[in-house]
């Protein structure tokens, strides 16, 4: 049985300033008003969700992932009926509750006890229900000592723990979760995880929005990937997550390129150095420029240089740097005992990095040419961006390398 149904849901938002006072509105009434058009956009509007359809069956755990602004929160807000869709329909069966903004109902002047009742009823519980769960809620939050203290005196951790405790005791049929599991210290997080597992086992339908990919991987049976308001992939976590990572890395690559471009504009003044790197080629096997590599694919770099004067014993270095600045590997001709007597005029160097086994992410190559003592660089070039594609591997990878490990059991 489907407990959640999204049928062709569209949601339109406006950007920019709008009229929100009579003073602005009254003069505008005199002007001719545009007829209201549901299906069309004017220049100040955009679609936050475009024709989104999906179903969630009873007891399913569905993950919703996507970059910022993909429409995840809009989907949750439509589900929890805070907003209505512009077009399409949403069906919900059963009691729905949301682990979103769990402290929104708190009032600073009231005590913890008063706030449990207030927040509980705001979330849809009855007073009787809270009466019966009160001790459990207080116990779960672990702040029994301070229950009669106004919450404005609470630490931020206590504050959100209390909010989470109330929300976690609602026993809903459908639970919406939006990035709230990272509340409190390790002990409390363990409690939360335990509570989630209880809910999972009790057959609650859960919709989970998170950027925490290992969590999605562990909990969800099905994942939907949203991008710019559209569902672009739906399936098991193993299918969808790499797809998502590629989108993220793609964005990262764009940003990195932009940053490098603006950087190279700044240093363009001292281009009259003795050597210039005129052209860099990233390739594998065939001599063709590539920016996307698979994990474990050999990477070679060919660089063309042009020396205006004769340079004795130059040293070439190559660094591979991840988008976030981590230096992944570094080599130079000196340490590798590859002596170059001198360069003059045009020439080319080929660097075979071999199987680097870099993890999926965006990287750039930093190539530089130094004098023989490695004191003064003639030229530094770092605008060659490449990307290792995610594929088949699980979760978010924090490691730099993915070596080809052979596992076996021995006695």
């Amino acid at each position, binding site marked *: 049985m489907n407990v959640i149904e999204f049928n062709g849901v569209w949601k339109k*938002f*406006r950007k920019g300033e709008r*009229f*929100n*006072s*009579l*003073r602005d*509105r009254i003069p505008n009434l005199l002007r001719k008003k545009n007829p209201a058009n549901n299906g069309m956009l004017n220049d100040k509007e955009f679609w936050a969700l475009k024709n989104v359809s999906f179903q969630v069956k009873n007891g399913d755990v569905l993950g919703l992932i996507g970059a910022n602004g993909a429409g995840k929160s809009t989907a949750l*807000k439509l589900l*929890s*009926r*805070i*907003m*209505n869709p512009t077009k399409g329909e949403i069906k919900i069966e059963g009691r729905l509750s*949301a682990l*979103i*903004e769990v402290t*929104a*109902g708190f*009032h600073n*002047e*009231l005590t913890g006890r*008063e706030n449990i*009742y*207030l927040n509980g*009823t*705001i*979330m*849809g*519980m*009855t*007073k*009787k229900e809270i009466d019966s769960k009160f001790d459990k809620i207080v116990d779960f939050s672990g702040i029994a000592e301070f229950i009669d203290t106004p919450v404005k005196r609470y630490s931020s951790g206590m504050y959100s723990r209390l909010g989470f405790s109330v929300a976690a005791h609602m026993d809903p049929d459908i639970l919406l979760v939006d990035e709230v599991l990272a509340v409190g210290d390790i002990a409390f997080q363990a409690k939360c995880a335990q509570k989630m597992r209880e809910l999972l086992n009790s057959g609650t339908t859960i919709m989970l929005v998170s950027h925490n990919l290992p969590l999605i991987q562990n909990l969800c049976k099905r994942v939907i990937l949203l991008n710019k308001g559209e569902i672009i992939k739906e399936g098991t976590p193993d299918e969808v997550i790499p797809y998502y990572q590629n989108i993220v890395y793609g964005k990262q690559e764009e940003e990195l390129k932009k940053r490098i471009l603006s950087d190279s504009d700044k240093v363009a003044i001292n281009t009259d150095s003795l050597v210039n790197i005129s052209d860099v080629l990233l390739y594998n096997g065939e001599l063709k420029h590539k920016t996307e590599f698979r994990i474990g694919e050999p990477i070679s770099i060919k660089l063309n240089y042009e020396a205006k004067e004769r340079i004795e014993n130059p040293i070439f270095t190559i660094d591979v740097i991840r988008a976030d600045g981590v230096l992944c590997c570094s080599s130079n001709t000196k340490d590798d005992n590859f002596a170059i007597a001198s360069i003059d005029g045009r020439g080319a160097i080929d660097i075979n990095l071999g199987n680097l086994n870099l993890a999926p992410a965006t990287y750039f190559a930093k190539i530089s040419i130094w004098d023989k003592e490695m004191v003064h660089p003639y030229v530094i070039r770092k605008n060659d961006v490449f990307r290792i594609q995610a594929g088949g591997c699980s979760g978010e990878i924090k490691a730099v390398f993915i070596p080809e490990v052979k596992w076996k059991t021995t006695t």
Partner: protein
Amino acid sequence: MFKEVIKYRDLLFMLTLRDIRIRYKQAAMGFLWAIFMPIVAILAGIIVKKVMAVMSGKPIDSSGILAIAIKVIPWTFFVSSIKFSVQSLVGNANLVTKIYFPREVLPLASIFACLFDLLIAGIALAVILIFTHIGATVYLLWLPVLLIFLVLFTAGLGLFLASANLFYRDIKYVVEIILMFGIFFTPVFYDANMFGNWQTLLLINPIGSILEAINSIVILHKMPNTFWLAYAGITSFAVFILGMEVFHKSEPLFAENI
């Protein structure tokens, strides 16, 4: 729309309690707060009465002062209810944009919290009335009915203004100005019949006809004017239904327009 509010009645109760608690917790005066505004208004009324007495050469009678007291209390209820309910949606923006519940409970809770003040002030006044040996008649049975009219009218207007203020933020200022001078356009410090044929103008305002009716049953021991009583009842119900309707229709737009 009524069904949902009834389903969330515990929330309505909790929000009312929240508003009352906050008001009485923060104010050093505590429960005196409930009678503070009526006392100031009554003092103002006595000055107006005194001026009128000097002009006409007749002394003030005690029933005139009691009439002011009995009308000021429902009037202050009306004023503070509207004031709080106009703000109730915008002031709880974090709830409106984040959690689903029938939004009607927000203005209704602020009105109920003011009703609590009315109750306290009403009890205080009742004690005074007992000491002045004003006496009671069977007409007092109309009092709860009139209070229901008053609450319905206030709630309808409050719901309407709360949603209007969400879309147009300057509604609040317009309302404040009207409320500030409203006391001169409503028979609070004086009686409508002092205006002779012009009294219709004052009684068209349902608050005016309700106040006059309360005055006539409590102080004058008379059956209120049937026509204006019926008028007050019908308009109160109509305003309430209309307010609920407008509120309910605009409710889905709240979260994105706040």
